[in-house]
């Protein structure tokens, strides 16, 4: 027994802010075992009464929060403040963050809470846990934003931006960047509002000049605020988007392209499909050559083959002169329809039906077979089962017809989906079904000789 329990308790590292956790020999921690072996964890000594009370109080607060008893949680919180005087320095240091987290949640939902209360609480907390100043400031600003108080939020962020404590650590730097970026985002918001106003004004108007001058100032400030964050690896979609929009507005196309290229292709950044989408949309606005657009979408295709831009990608590839682009065009369509979310995309089916015929007429049976080989054991069940034939026909006859054509080409006349649709007697679609039958007879890849 003894060697097991020794295995269980490992000394904590000093960066562990949370309650001491129970670790097993495997390195996994078990927060719920804390209660059961509390005495073991403290080395046989019983926890101090104070620690016991504060722990109990904390769990009462959490319980009340989960039961939406805000009033009660606030009452418990009132008692919990005592932890700030704990003699255990570890706990004392960790306490302000816990109090802030729970307290702000209580104040967010508490029926009697208002913005003033929240402001007072936040200001108090910022100065109790000096180390949490930046984090609390940011969250405070977000709270104000949530309540539509942009001015106050901006002021708050400006305060936080200039705040320094001791040596600038890396974690502080990230937070300061984030605070600046949010400030930039707020400035972008005012800027875009001004832009809207400007678009309603006449260029010869007296007010136009002042307004545009205003905007220029804003842009300069914003770019300073945003660009620091954007250069650190991460997912910064809204910041990048607004930054690029401003750069574009002032004609700095190269700057915008650089930001977007960096955001999409820098290896340090996590793989982010949105980065490629922004770049593609930018290049499209710029009227970049088709080759360039295709190369951007090719990467997006590799990350998210089910994206709705893939149909656009297919159109680009279809229009291209290169043979391997035509082949990729077929691959892209098959790829889109592989995904569960795209099975009812009628455009994709329409494209596939049309492009299959086109490819087969162009004597590229091998392309089709290559795509079909990896799918022939599961597409019939996934797309062309009799269940789908019935339900598609009931819900969307046009979709059913397109699918029937594809099914007929890929699986032959005997396939259940095609048979079911071709047997349907529908006044409006009779002609279409007849055409489908003819196409299938002509193009089906099953027994192509017949």
């Amino acid at each position: 027994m003894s060697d097991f329990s020794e295995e269980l308790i490992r000394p904590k590292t000093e960066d562990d802010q949370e309650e001491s956790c129970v670790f097993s020999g495997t390195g996994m921690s078990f927060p719920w075992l804390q209660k059961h072996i509390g005495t073991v964890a403290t080395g046989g000594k019983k926890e101090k009464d104070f620690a016991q009370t504060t722990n109990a109080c904390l769990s009462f607060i959490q319980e009340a929060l989960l039961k939406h008893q805000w009033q009660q949680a606030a009452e418990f919180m009132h008692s919990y403040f005592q932890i700030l005087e704990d003699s255990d320095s570890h706990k004392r240091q960790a306490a302000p963050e816990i109090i802030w987290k729970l307290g702000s949640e209580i104040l967010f939902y508490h029926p009697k809470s208002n913005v003033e209360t929240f402001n007072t609480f936040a200001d108090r907390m910022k100065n109790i846990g000096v180390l949490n100043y930046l984090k609390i400031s940011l969250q405070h600003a977000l709270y104000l934003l949530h309540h539509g108080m942009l001015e106050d939020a901006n002021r708050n962020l400006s305060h936080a931006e200039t705040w320094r404590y001791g040596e600038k650590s890396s974690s502080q730097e990230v937070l300061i960047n984030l605070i600046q970026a949010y400030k930039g985002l707020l400035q972008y918001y005012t800027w875009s509002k001004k832009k809207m106003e400007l678009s309603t004004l006449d260029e010869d108007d007296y007010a136009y000049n002042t307004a545009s001058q205003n905007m220029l100032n804003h842009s300069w400030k914003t770019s300073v605020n945003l660009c620091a964050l954007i250069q650190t690896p991460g997912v910064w979609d809204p910041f990048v988007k607004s930054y690029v929009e401003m750069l574009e507005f002032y004609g700095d196309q190269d700057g915008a392209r650089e930001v977007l290229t960096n955001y999409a292709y820098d290896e340090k950044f996590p793989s982010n499909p949105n980065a490629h989408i922004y770049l593609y949309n930018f290049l499209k606005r710029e009227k970049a050559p088709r080759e360039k657009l295709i190369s951007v979408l090719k990467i997006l295709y590799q990350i998210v083959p089910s994206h709705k831009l893939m149909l656009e990608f297919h159109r680009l590839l279809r229009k291209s002169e290169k043979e391997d682009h035509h082949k990729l065009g077929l691959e892209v369509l098959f790829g889109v329809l592989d995904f569960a979310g795209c099975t009812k995309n009628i455009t994709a089916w329409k494209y596939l039906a049309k492009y299959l015929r086109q490819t087969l007429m162009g004597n590229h049976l091998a392309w089709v077979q290559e795509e079909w080989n990896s799918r022939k054991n599961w597409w019939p069940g996934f797309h062309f089962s009799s269940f789908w034939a019935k339900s598609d026909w009931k819900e969307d006859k046009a979709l059913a017809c397109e699918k029937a054509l594809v099914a007929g080409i890929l699986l032959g006349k005997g396939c259940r989906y095609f048979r079911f649709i071709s047997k349907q007697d529908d006044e409006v679609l009779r002609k279409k079904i007849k055409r489908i039958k003819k196409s299938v007879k002509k193009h089906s890849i099953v027994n192509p000789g017949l």
Partner: protein
Amino acid sequence: MRRHTWPRAYSGSQRPLDPFLCCLLVPLSRFLWDHGDIAFAPLGKLMLENFKLEGARSRSKKKTVVSVKSLLQDLGGHQPWGCPWAFLSYRQRRFSIIGGPVLGKSVASLLGALLHEELAMRWEQLLLDDAFTGGALAWVPGRTPQVGQLVYPAGGALDTLCFQEVRLPPGSDPQALGDPGHIRLRGPVRQVVTRTVQGESLLAVRSDYHCALWKVSKQGRAAPLQVLQVGKGATGISLSPHLPGELAVCSRSGAVCLWTPQDGLQQVYKDPETLVFCDPSPWRWADFTAHPRVLTVGDRTGVKIIDTQGPPGCGLLLFRGGAEASCRRGERVLLTQYLGECGPEPQLPTLHLICTQFSLYLVDERLPLVPMLKWEHNLPSAPLWARLLPPPCPGCPRPLLLGGQGGHLQLLHLAGEGASAPRLAGPPQSLPSSSDSLSAFPLLEPKSQWRLQERLKAPTIGLAATIPSSASEPVLSLFQLSAAGDVFHQHLHLQADPGPHSRAPTASWTPQATACCSRWLKALLDVPPTPPVWAAPTFSHRRLLGCMEQRKVEQKGPEGLRAAMAAGRLLRQQDVGSPPSAGPPPAPEPGPEDELSARLEAAWEGRMAAWWERQQGRSSGPGRQPKRRKRRTQLSSTFSSLSGRLDLSDATSPPHSPDRASPEARPRPPVTPPSQESTQELWARGVPSERQQTLRDYMARLPLRGDAPRGVSSPLSGTSSVRATRSRPQTLQDGTAELPPRRNTRRGAAVSSSQTSSVWATPSRQQALRKKPRMGF
């Protein structure tokens, strides 16, 4: 009285018998019962020359030879569990001296290793029991939205799969329709998964070493499709939301297989190592993604996306226990689940839920590694099941239920469809757990109250939920299966935005729920409590009887007592005869060379081993033997008189010491030994042929023979037979009592309430699953 040494697992400390050691003895004694041939046969062979198998009277001159017949006679008077404090005859004493060195070493080391393995396993299980990950309760929708089936395991070993049809009438409590259907399986059910794909309802079940697939017809009948054996043990099973009948199965070996009844098994991934960093847990999990040919493979350290058609070994990490998700130290993945359902319009087709012991993460497979959402759930037990439900009304956020092993439940609301990132709508909420319903029961006497509390506290092993799409008001029906075999139900009403001043909704029981729960409670309390698994042994009856008979001759106690009672007068000293002398039993007289005190002294000074060596050498010398023998007899007679007195007084006095079980404590009915034939053969091997018949005769008389009750076999034991028959039927009652209440309560139907749980039960699952210890071969 000296405590006998019991084979010790390790050269551990000399601690008193603590509760932990007691539960350690359980697997050990089970092992000795279940695998007696393994534990003792080789030793028997070794010690063959020390036994005299013929029952001849001729006394051997050699002190190292023990007559088996008399030895068995002595042993025959013992309770099956009688070891540590058993009465000892001088023959047994001799036997133990001969066998001591052999028994001490080989058995202890063999058992030690096995025990260590078993203990390590139990310790792991105590920390985290992941066998039921995914949950063993499922809701199979029926023909109409209001009717469905609950599928769950029942029975002591969880090896009976039950199909209970349940009706959820709008606005009132659910009703169980008829008795549940049963399917008996070969192993305990760990996970039940159900899914309706293209109008076909499928049911997959995971046991420890088997997986099975059923198809549920529209009428609710289950037809078996296929069974799969997983040699290394299955850890997870999931049904494809895209293709009917397709399954992903993962095994402890690190392999993940796709399985379809038509095409059979296809191994798509194999890696005995964990994904991100080294973790010893063999737990693996697999689920589907938005692409029917792409799976997620998870272990404790992370989750990976793999393309089953691509080259083996490649893939993309979807989640990593590390900085991207700002994981804590020691944080491990406990559950991963694909949240996209193949509905007419899949709402979150690319979202995956990942639960650790601290937080819940939502990860989009298009944007791997960086979670879309992280929320600290703070559940006080391991979150092993989650259910995402369709939105209760158009445009509403989707309810996500998170269940912990301790019965804790949390309800979250997931909003955000299509392009927007998922977010939590409103603050998460904790739902009442089964043990919270204790206050709704009437106050009972402490013992019953305790039993009820224990029953309600049984760990949860499954969670199912459904929103029957009725016209008026959306209701969320929630079922929880406990390890004791109860199904708890609660239903939640959707509240329009409560507004800032509304009070938290209160939980309440409807009259039907109260009635049902009181029926359940009655059935629960009707079943007598199960006997303890392990009881301290009692004393030899034979010796006791000897004493009793002697006393009968010389005492007029019982007659006097009876006369006094008949006359209704005060019982006087002279009626009973001489009172039993109080005080401790006479200590063995210290001889000129007192071994016991010498040994104790040596042990006290930490020179026990040296003493033992010395003793070994001395006792084998010829001169010591007679003296030793004399002391033994002295000691044994002390024992017998002591035991006699103790047992005589037990009619009026409470149990002698808390340490020792009271004589009332019934021993467990002996487990039927593994086929008597095979044990005999094992014994017989290596025994000279002329002795084999004798040996067989003795074997036949071994107390192991379960069908001959000991009490009956020894004709001179008046009281002992009384006791034996008293204990037997009681244990039988335990067995039979299981059946009738179950049926009653089942018919008593499902219950509900507007927010609290109600129960519906199988009142007696005796002793949670008595798994064969893993140390077996």
